[in-house]
């Protein structure tokens, strides 16, 4: 059905698509409702091992389910931390993980976490099933690499081992409204307190979530301190071409992104210090 009709769209929770339709920004000729496909609604470990290498979440798993799922809390704490920031309880009750990813709103928290953690997205097309890295999936605002006629089926979040900590911050005009800037960080420290692994990304400031690779490289294998974090983040965010609009100027977004990224790393560091190894 999807392949036969260019104007057809897949609908799951409808929390992004239906507002777009209400504003006549989307005018699908046909809606294909996958919201009740039980096979696409699950949260599970990648394998049966005690410490899984990844957590796989079905595309139509509702956001409120992921928000409270013990596997997500235990193994993908950054995602668990970001979930309450998504919309409101009433939209998380219908909105799905895959729907948020497939819509690729620049301010979406799930997209930011997927890019931060190098998640892998699975989809099914006429040609069969395929996978794509989150970093390659988001092309522009509301534009993804998902082939025409394909349907997202699942997303796989890698599980980090060791003493990990997470941080997530965003600013918006109203509680849980669209972010004008956001930042997500996850890191691992060793017994000696040295940062061994770090992922930091900012969202809502450009068309797609951006990893701050230079800051990651500058900080890994060092003992984190507030000034080193600040220098690494600010140097890196200077290079990001932020977007300005009605809600916030490009300069504001750059300053906010830097401040939020700094706070996210500081929070993640404290979180790791206070946590026990996985």
């Amino acid at each position, binding site marked *: 059905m999807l392949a036969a009709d260019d104007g057809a769209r897949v609908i799951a929770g*409808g*929390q992004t698509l*239906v*507002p777009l339709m209400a504003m006549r920004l989307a005018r699908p000729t046909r*809606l294909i409702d996958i919201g009740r496909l039980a096979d696409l609604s699950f949260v599970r470990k990648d394998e049966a091992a005690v410490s899984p290498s990844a957590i796989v979440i079905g595309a139509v798993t509702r956001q409120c389910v992921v928000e409270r799922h013990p596997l997500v809390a235990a193994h993908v704490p950054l995602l668990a931390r970001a979930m309450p920031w998504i*919309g409101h*309880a*009433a939209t998380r*009750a219908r909105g799905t993980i895959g729907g948020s990813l497939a819509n690729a709103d620049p301010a979406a928290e799930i997209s930011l976490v997927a890019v931060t953690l190098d998640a892998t997205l699975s989809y099914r097309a006429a040609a069969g099933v395929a996978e794509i890295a989150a970093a390659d999936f988001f092309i522009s605002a509301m534009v993804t690499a998902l082939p025409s006629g394909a349907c997202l089926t699942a997303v796989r979040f890698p599980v980090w081992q060791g003493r990990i900590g997470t941080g997530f911050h965003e600013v918006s005009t109203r509680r849980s409204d669209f972010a004008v800037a956001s930042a997500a960080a996850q890191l691992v420290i060793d017994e000696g307190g040295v940062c061994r692994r770090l992922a930091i990304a900012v969202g809502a400031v450009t068309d797609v979530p951006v990893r701050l690779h230079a800051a990651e490289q500058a900080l890994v294998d060092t003992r984190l301190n507030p000034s080193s974090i600040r220098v690494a983040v600010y140097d890196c965010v200077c290079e990001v071409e932020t977007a300005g609009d009605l809600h916030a100027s490009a300069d504001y977004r750059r300053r906010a992104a830097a401040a939020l990224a700094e706070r996210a790393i500081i929070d993640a560091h404290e979180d790791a210090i206070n946590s026990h190894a996985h």
Partner: protein
Amino acid sequence: MRTELNVNGSIQAVEVEPRTTLLDCLRDHLGLTGAHAGCEHGVCGACTVLIDGVAVRSCLIFAVQADDFAITTIEGLSPGPGELSIIQDAFCETHGLQCGYCTPAMILTAHALLAGNPAPTRDDIVEAISGNICRCTGYAQIVEAVALAAERMRGANVPPEATRGGAARGGAASSGAIRGGAAP
């Protein structure tokens, strides 16, 4: 398209276009005008109804997607003709409404909150109603109303045997509490 909706405990057959939202169906086809149309794109929260006990935006779900769910509107909360539920009564008592436009949605949102959390903190209440816009009261009395309702429901719902030393954990979350009936 013909679809059957379970609204406030009764099955209603409706003939709607596929593009008809649940909100329009409730208001125009079933005469349940307590669900209010505000922004109609999921921002204001005025159209909130309960689907299987959970607060959702009825403007963001099509009527034909809502079959097989138990839909509750504000009309379904009243324990009897001319009577108010505990939450509705608390809103009156604390002056938790002025123009009333956001009120049915606020009450249903509060209902969903208290069903899962009989003793919410102020932060829990603020978080729960953060998706519902009120342009009259400034929210203070609404938060007060929800807290008062929570307190009354906790008190009202202790089954008689609990006062004699039995288990106090009754259906604080169930709609039985709202309807004012004694717990079984």
